[in-house]
């Protein structure tokens, strides 16, 4: 079996195993898995409204997935997408509330602010990794909590002691009457176009520019890149900055499209952590991220229908997602199994 085929088979098998484990858990706890998955299916594709909402849910997952995948390709594990997304969310909402400008300036400004905030949050671990060789995983985890508490404090200041900001001005909004009418008034907004363009941007950077070539080279072997005359430190920082900018844009989708405000949070949104799942499932390629984001975004939104339609707690879908991550990460054992199966076939 070719490596390409196994590379695609590993995620597919993982998804199937995840769904099987979910079914078994539903069976053991006395629910009917067929009802459960039917409710999930209807929650995703039930009518035009749910389809619109599903696509809306996929939008930030695309960007979070891109952020994780981009860092992975440069050999960095950005577990801080969650924090970068939160600061991006706040920055976009703040620009949306603070000033009123013509849309042609206001909207891009708000989006750029989100990207810049995310990039800044990615810059810190990048710099520490490049200059002090500090492992980025720990720093980004810590940065997540700093982001959470700092934005909560800022929201309190901006709103004069409240829990959420005002709604943003219409000139900074991504809302789209056209898309809303198309999908029976779901909250689907133009963000999906931005997200898909960003998928193209990531592909372009990685495949068509010198920067992308260097980033991938550093990811494969930073010693070799150093000897080849590349500036490894610069590339590490750049990779984290771009990754953070993607994550910040994910926050802008929530700030300017879905919610049109930012509220203080008791805990994380979870989008950033699911971004890890998206990237892994998509094997860190731009096209793969589209598949991963579509799957996890759909599962996440469809799950909301499960308690009503089948009486099953929606956490079952989180369990399925966790199991999928587990199996994708353990790809070695699935590959081994596939290899043995292929050998047996040849022996016959």
């Amino acid at each position: 079996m070719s490596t390409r085929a196994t590379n695609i088979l590993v995620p597919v098998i993982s998804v199937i195993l995840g769904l099987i484990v979910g079914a078994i858990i539903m069976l053991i706890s006395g629910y009917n898995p067929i009802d459960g998955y039917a409710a999930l299916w209807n929650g995703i594709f039930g009518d035009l409204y749910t389809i619109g909402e599903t696509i809306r849910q996929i939008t930030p997952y695309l960007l979070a997935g891109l952020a994780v995948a981009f860092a992975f390709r440069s050999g960095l594990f950005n577990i801080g997408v969650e924090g970068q997304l939160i600061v991006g969310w706040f920055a976009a909402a703040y620009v949306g509330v603070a000033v009123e400008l013509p849309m042609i300036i206001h909207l891009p400004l708000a989006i750029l602010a989100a990207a810049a905030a995310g990039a800044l949050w990615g810059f810190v671990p990048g710099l520490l990794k490049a200059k002090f060789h500090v492992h980025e995983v720990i720093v980004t985890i810590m940065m997540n909590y700093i982001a959470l508490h700092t934005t909560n404090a800022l929201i309190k200041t901006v709103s004069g002691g409240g829990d959420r900001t005002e709604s943003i001005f219409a000139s900074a909004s991504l809302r789209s009457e056209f898309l809303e009418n198309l999908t029976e008034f779901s909250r689907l907004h133009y963000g999906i176009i931005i997200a898909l363009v960003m998928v193209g941007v990531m592909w372009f950077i990685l495949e068509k520019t010198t920067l992308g070539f260097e980033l991938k080279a550093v990811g494969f072997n930073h010693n070799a890149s150093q000897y080849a005359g590349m500036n490894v430190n610069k590339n590490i920082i750049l990779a984290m900055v771009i990754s953070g900018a993607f994550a910040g844009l994910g926050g802008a989708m929530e700030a300017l499209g879905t919610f049109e405000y930012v509220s203080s949070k008791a805990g994380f949104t979870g989008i950033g952590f699911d971004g890890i799942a998206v990237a892994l499932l998509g094997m860190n390629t731009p096209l793969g991220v589209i598949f991963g984001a579509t799957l996890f975004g759909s599962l996440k939104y469809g799950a909301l229908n499960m308690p009503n339609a089948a009486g099953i707690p929606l956490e079952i879908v989180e369990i399925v997602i966790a199991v999928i991550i587990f199996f994708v990460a353990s790809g070695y054992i699935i590959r081994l199994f596939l290899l043995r199966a292929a050998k047996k076939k040849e022996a016959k």
Partner: protein
Amino acid sequence: MSFLEVLYFIVPSAIFYAAPLILVAIGGVFSERSGVINIGLEGLMVIGAFVGILFNLLFADTFGDATPWLALIAAMVAALLLSLVHAVASISFRADQTVSGVAINLLAIALSLYLVKKIFGKGQTDFITERFTRYDFPVLSDIPFIGPMFFTKIYNTSFLAILIAIIAWFIIYKTPFGLRLRSVGEHPMAADTMGINVNRMRYIAVMISGALAGIGGAIYAQTISGDFGHATINGQGFMALAAMIFGKWHPLGAMGAALFFGLAQALSIASSSIPIIQDIPNVFLLILPYVLTILALAGFIGRANAPKANGIPYIKGQR
């Protein structure tokens, strides 16, 4: 409030908040000293908290006063079993240990909330009736200064945490088992050549980390929160991870760091009633542990070096 009163108030509550952190951080020390990164501490703590509360609610009538202690054992077993999933993935299946840890965190919170909704029909459990109780330590609490600070209104669980930290130090630095554990985390191939079973050592270490994280979670739930819901643990496991790093992967260092982070938490909650601190915005106290950890890693507060083979699966015969 006079300065002494503030001290008598803040030191016990710092120890109170630190106890679960100490245990979980020590668990992290065992796992990472053997070369297995354990981001899943948060998830293991969640399972510990959930099982602890569940056991307490189900058996409070049967066991009475002993319930919280038995709940610790139940939580320990549950978290140990979950940690085996991480061990299998990261040791036998050679998975990326950080990713496997992330999966453990997602799985733990999802599984326990799923069961909470299934069993209780709502988003969080009822409040427990049998809690750990505070008491004044006999004789020692009468000592001036030290008595009111360390021995009045204390929990036995705090003593347990400090005791386990000292035992962990003894095991890791003074026993053959500890030497093997550290060697497996620094240079597994050399250890293997000397006849140490690398993977077995790592399995044991991850299981110890699971057990301690489970106890830590159950202590947190049964002393601080009193029930279990989605926000019960909310980052305590990651703070323990931070304490482990700030303590430079040393059991006593981790204990010291956990006590310090406990102080920061106690201050952030009680700051409004303390004269000097009430002017500092709360957010600075909330982010203090995380900022300090980053600074420690960057070498501004002494160099923090991870065990050499941390995060690398051991594959026999590979250079």
